[in-house]
């Protein structure tokens, strides 16, 4: 079934710009792989900006008092850090990069259903990103509301909130278009033999994610429109002075933004589910349980938004309902964890860098998820809500979870995308440093939160000094690891040894293609005769 029509040294789609030459052949390409790479470059650039801001935040917090910046600067900083990380990095991240590149390949298609729409959504992403960046330097200065944009503060602060909000609004459309494209592609373009039971679980997770993108993102759009109306027209829909209710803003905001956290994690879980069977040489344990738990998380996860509002003044009845629903969502996540671990059983495990990231994902996600239970329980959330504990929780799930899955995906697929292998030893060392730094950084924050340190504080009481220092040191260790990782990947992509078509011995369809794949993925649409994890039946090509 191998389709290596190009010779091994060829640069495949990387050299094939279609109608246009050079750079134009990239930014006007409708090839899903090229669009995926465009996203990769863009998303990684913003990630580095966000990461640098995170580092500066930690520097300010190294000691009590005003250390390196004013309160206003700090407020702008965590707002911009949050907005970039959430809307520009982690939400588009895995679907738009790896999803774009591998979704069509995984189902044996030559492109997504709407290639031009796909390109358009990248353009929307870039325009929105530029608008958000422009909001930092124009108007009344960078927005200072936090990424949650709560009214009434966001309706009255003099900083450049409207522009940032408008940028996020456009990003929403970019995300919606990706979702529409993926759902349609999965329904319509599966190659012969790729029935629902042979869909790689990464695709299942993207499919579930896409539905959340389609059904939840419009809520964000309308919320932001309402916020703009509040600011620019004085609509007063959230202003108590004219009969509005500020808590309704929080409902509308979280109706999107909680499902959004599952937009962030589901594709990450998908990547981990791809990596583990490959490196354990075993069929994934409980295929259907994992597939349906993705759908379950997406469905149940859309109904728990109120857990961000336990102390907001919402009714106690709503606290009861949302707390219960929150705990229900934990169950499909637990199922996934158990299935991953069970897949290892009696396997033949090799600890290559992607696998290390996948296994550490499980550990970090468990910590993040289990602290989520503390937050989901009404009584305990009252204490830790809006403290550093929440900050710890979400960095564990977002950076430790999705972030590590993303890095795992990079290590797993970069050889396929670029055709070259990075240095595995250095990758392993970088992983070790990051893992250590990460835990030092955020575990300290969780303890700080339990001891009562509120979040979004640029200054704190002296009793919180010690752990803040530890945490800041952790951020440096993490930074060192991250730097090492990126340098290593970059060097590998440029000048590493050829990786070959199937360096890891995977069974999904991308490994039947040359590395890098040619512009037109499959010369003949393949007929698939086995499942994506049938290591017990067929041996990898």
């Amino acid at each position, binding site marked *: 079934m191998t389709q290596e029509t190009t010779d091994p040294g060829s640069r495949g789609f990387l050299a*094939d*710009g*279609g*109608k246009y030459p050079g750079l134009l052949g990239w930014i006007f390409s*409708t*090839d899903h792989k090229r669009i995926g790479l465009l996203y990769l470059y863009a998303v990684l650039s913003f990630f580095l900006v966000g990461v640098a801001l995170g580092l500066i935040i930690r520097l300010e917090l190294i000691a009590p008092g005003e250390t390196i910046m004013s309160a206003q600067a700090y407020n702008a900083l965590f707002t911009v850090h949050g907005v970039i990380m959430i809307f520009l990095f982690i939400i588009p991240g895995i679907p738009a990069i790896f999803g774009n590149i591998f979704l069509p390949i995984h189902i044996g298609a*030559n*492109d997504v*259903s*709407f*290639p*031009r*729409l796909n390109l358009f959504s990248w353009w929307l992403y870039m325009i929105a990103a530029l608008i958000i960046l422009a909001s930092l330097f124009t108007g009344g200065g960078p927005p200072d509301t936090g990424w949650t944009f709560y009214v009434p503060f966001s309706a009255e602060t003099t900083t450049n909130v409207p522009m940032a909000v408008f940028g996020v609004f456009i990003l929403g459309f970019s995300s*919606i278009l990706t*979702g*529409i*494209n993926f*759902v*349609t592609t999965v*329904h*319509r*373009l599966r190659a012969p033999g790729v029935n629902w039971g042979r869909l790689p679980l990464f695709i299942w997770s993207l499919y579930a994610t896409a539905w959340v993108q*389609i*059904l*939840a*993102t*419009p*809520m964000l*759009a*309308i*919320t932001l*429109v*309402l916020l703009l*109306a509040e600011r620019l*027209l*004085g*609509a*007063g*829909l959230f202003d108590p002075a*004219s*009969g*509005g*209710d500020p808590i*309704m803003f929080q*409902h*509308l905001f979280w*109706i999107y933004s909680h499902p959004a956290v599952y937009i962030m994690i589901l594709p990450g879980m998908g990547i981990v589910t791809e990596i583990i069977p490959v490196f354990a040489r075993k069929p994934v344990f409980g295929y259907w349980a994992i597939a349906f738990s993705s759908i379950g998380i997406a469905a149940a996860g859309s109904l728990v938004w109120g857990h961000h509002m336990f102390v907001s003044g919402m009714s106690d009845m709503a606290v009861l309902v949302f707390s219960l629903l929150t705990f229900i969502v934990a169950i499909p996540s637990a199922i996934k964890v158990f299935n991953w671990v069970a897949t290892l059983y009696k396997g033949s495990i090799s600890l290559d860098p992607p696998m290390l990231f996948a296994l550490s994902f499980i550990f970090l996600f468990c910590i993040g998820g289990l602290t989520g239970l503390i937050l989901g329980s009404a009584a305990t959330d009252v204490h830790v809500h809006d403290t550093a504990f929440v900050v710890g929780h979400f960095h564990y799930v977002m950076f430790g979870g999705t972030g590590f899955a993303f890095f795992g995906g990079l290590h797993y697929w970069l050889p396929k995308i670029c055709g070259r292998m990075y240095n595995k030893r250095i990758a392993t060392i970088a992983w070790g440093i990051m893992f250590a730094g990460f835990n030092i950084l955020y575990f300290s924050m969780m303890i700080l939160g339990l001891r009562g340190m509120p979040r979004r504080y640029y200054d704190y009481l002296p009793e919180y000094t010690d752990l803040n220092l530890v945490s800041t040191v952790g951020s440096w260790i993490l930074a060192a690891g991250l730097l090492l990782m990126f340098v290593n990947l970059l060097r590998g992509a440029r000048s590493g040894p050829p990786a070959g078509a199937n360096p890891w011995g995977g069974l999904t369809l991308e490994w039947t293609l040359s590395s890098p794949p*040619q*512009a*037109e993925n499959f010369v003949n649409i393949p007929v698939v005769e086995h499942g994506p994890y049938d290591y017990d039946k067929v041996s990898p090509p």
Partner: protein
Amino acid sequence: MSDKGHPAPHKDYTGAKLGMWLFLYTEVLLFGGLFVLYAVYLHRYPQEFTTAAGQLNMYLGAANTVVLLTGSLLVALAVSAIRLGNSRLAQQLLWGGAVSGVLFLVNKYIEWSTEISHGIYPGSPVLAQRDQGESVFFGLYYLTLGLHGLHVLIGTIILATVAVMSAKGTINQNEFVVLENSGLYWHLVDLVWIFIFPLYYLLL
């Protein structure tokens, strides 16, 4: 396949329509957000909402309902017409649909200008004097109908474009999915109005 390798975009009729329907769901939820707010505030200010709704011009609202329903009919007929090979009729029907959009907007313009001339618009001093619930009602009214009006405008432009495409033959008996999808969009605009009309104009 072309020499440079990219496959020609496949003609997947069902896929194109599925994509359009998915897009329509996002539109439904977009308006859905406003209906969430409407429901909540109606529950909180039932009295004020009816007083405020009483000030809207029900006749203009009803007229606009008829206009949109008729527009929808014309566009639905256009799809059948093009498929029966009657492109001329289809074009006429589509222009008819576009005209219904324009009529709707003209109506809306008249309605809003009277209301604004009475000092009723978001954040107006007149509203600040009234009950809080009324100001919330009118805030929602302007946002919802404004957003809907925007959709009518876009829909009208789309219908005109599609009419031109049919005249040029880009849309024909065998290639009509663009027309059908545009029609779907236009029907959605109608659907939203079907809910707006009783909720805003007919509260008693």
